[in-house]
């Protein structure tokens, strides 16, 4: 349960200095957000901050509440409890103004497949209220960003999966938003295509756009995010920079011990008696926080965010 509920003194104080939030504070600020669907609590007292100009990752396995959280930021999900502030606007009341100033890349491809690349962008230039004189340049800029200039006249159903995803991102950038929401931007894509998209997202980040990205790919979060919030069962279980979280929870190095199932169980027991934390990785046991200990026979490797995740939640990430 979150300690910072909807009506806490902290949130009241923050409300009294909204100008700060608008310009220097946070692009996204959630306090004690809770959302139930029937008996299922999808988001359970979530606090989340995205400072301006940073890329924050929302990390968690399927069903952790990431997508519900993303939808709450566009008021397509209305929270039962808690406070949501996006670009200084209170949701859901002022969500339309917030939506006008941010770009959203959905998890599900919702391009108009019977329209051309350029027509898709034209429609959203209107929906995002790009002024008439700026529409053409905005579309050209978006085509350039997505590297789809040569395919502008092609219908979307002729594009590859990677191109469609690039178009989805370009579509969200037409109005040069200050904040971009990316919901699982690279799910289901080939590794090469994924790297192309990482380059595109990294470019946005260096241009100072604030980004909130949900993902269940560890590597993606480690590479792109300044900070991650690890979610499990609708709650934030850890918040911080990827390296800091790894250092804090997993230590600098892991020892990976391979062997028969019986041997692995034995190693597990031994590690626990020495007060080290372990995680199963299917074919091996990873021993964490065993810094400087060399008597165990295994491969040394650098710890990663996945170790942190499994330690904190007991859940594997796909």
């Amino acid at each position, binding site marked *: 349960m979150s300690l910072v509920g909807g009506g806490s003194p902290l949130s009241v104080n923050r409300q009294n200095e909204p100008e700060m939030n608008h310009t220097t504070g946070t692009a996204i600020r959630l306090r004690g957000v809770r959302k139930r669907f029937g008996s299922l609590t999808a988001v359970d007292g979530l606090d989340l901050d995205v400072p301006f100009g940073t890329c924050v990752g929302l990390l968690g396995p399927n069903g952790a509440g990431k997508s519900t959280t993303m939808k709450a930021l566009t008021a397509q999900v209305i929270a039962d409890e808690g406070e949501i502030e996006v670009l200084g606007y209170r949701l859901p009341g002022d969500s339309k*103004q917030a*939506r006008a100033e941010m770009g959203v890349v959905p998890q*599900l491809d919702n391009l108009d497949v019977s329209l051309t690349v350029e027509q898709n962008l034209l429609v959203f230039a209107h*929906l995002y209220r790009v002024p008439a004189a700026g529409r053409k340049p905005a579309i050209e800029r978006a085509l350039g960003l997505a590297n789809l200039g040569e395919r502008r006249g092609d219908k979307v159903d002729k594009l590859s999966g990677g191109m469609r995803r690039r178009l989805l991102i370009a579509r969200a950038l037409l109005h040069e938003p200050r904040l971009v929401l990316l919901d699982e931007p690279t799910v289901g894509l080939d590794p090469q295509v994924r790297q192309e998209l990482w380059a595109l997202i990294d470019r946005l980040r260096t241009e100072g756009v604030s980004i909130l990205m949900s993902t269940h790919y560890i590597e993606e979060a480690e590479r792109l995010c300044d900070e991650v919030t690890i979610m499990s069962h609708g709650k934030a279980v850890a918040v911080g920079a990827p390296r800091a979280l790894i250092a804090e929870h997993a230590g600098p190095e892991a020892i990976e011990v391979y062997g028969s199932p019986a041997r692995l169980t034995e190693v597990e027991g031994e590690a626990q008696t020495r007060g080290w934390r372990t995680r199963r990785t299917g074919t091996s046991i990873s021993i964490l926080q065993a810094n400087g200990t060399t008597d165990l026979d295994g491969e040394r490797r650098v710890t990663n965010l996945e170790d942190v995740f499994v330690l904190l939640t007991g859940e594997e990430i796909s």
Partner: protein
Amino acid sequence: MATATATGSRRLGRLERAALRGVMVREIVNFSSFWRSSTFSSTIDPTIYLLAFGFGFGSLVSTVAGYDYIDFVGTGIVATTVLFSGAFPAMYGTFVKYQFQHTYDAILAAPVDTEELVTAEALWIAARTGTYGCVPMLVAVVFGLDPSWGMLLVPAIAALAGFGWATFGIFIAARSKSIESFSYWQSGLLTPMFLVAGTFFPLDELPTWAQVLGNVNPLFHCVELVRHAVFGFEGWEDVGHLAFLVVFALVAWRLAIRFMERRLIL
């Protein structure tokens, strides 16, 4: 909320033109890729009804309710066209766009609210019914219906009724769990409405209960209003028909918005 004013943050209004235009631009751009098939079915269907009934029944009955039968049917079918080109695209289009193409997810992530989305979709369909509605009348002119100044009002009547049918269709789509359940609405409601509307035969000859049902059928009021626009208005009676269509459109519009919100905003 006091905070909103304190920040000086703009709160965008309801039913903004920019939002309505954005949604309609999407429809118009899409329409440019399927207008041929859509126009074909919207114009050929009523023409076939017109010819089949006009010449089929017309050979049995020469006048109905004081009109030449081709004149009677030629004006009545305007309303049928409005129903078909209003309710059906709204039902199927809406369902496909929210259920299969997730188009509405994309639109609602932009600065557009459900109210604007529904209104813009219905306005665009109304513009189409206003146009398509005139086709059978023009065909009837070719077959002997005398042109009149009142015909110039028919697009407006067809657009008003079309807005009502479009929002009613969106309401049906918002209430339906699957596209199959449209059958209940189609067979249980729309087909009876289509037949008991005074399009092909006058309601006066029917039993009282059928006349009562006819009077709560928006299609009947559309038929009457179109017929009177072409052949001469009948004073307060037509004000009543117009008022019924306006109320129908308003009620269907609000229902469509309410149920689409339930569907789209979780």
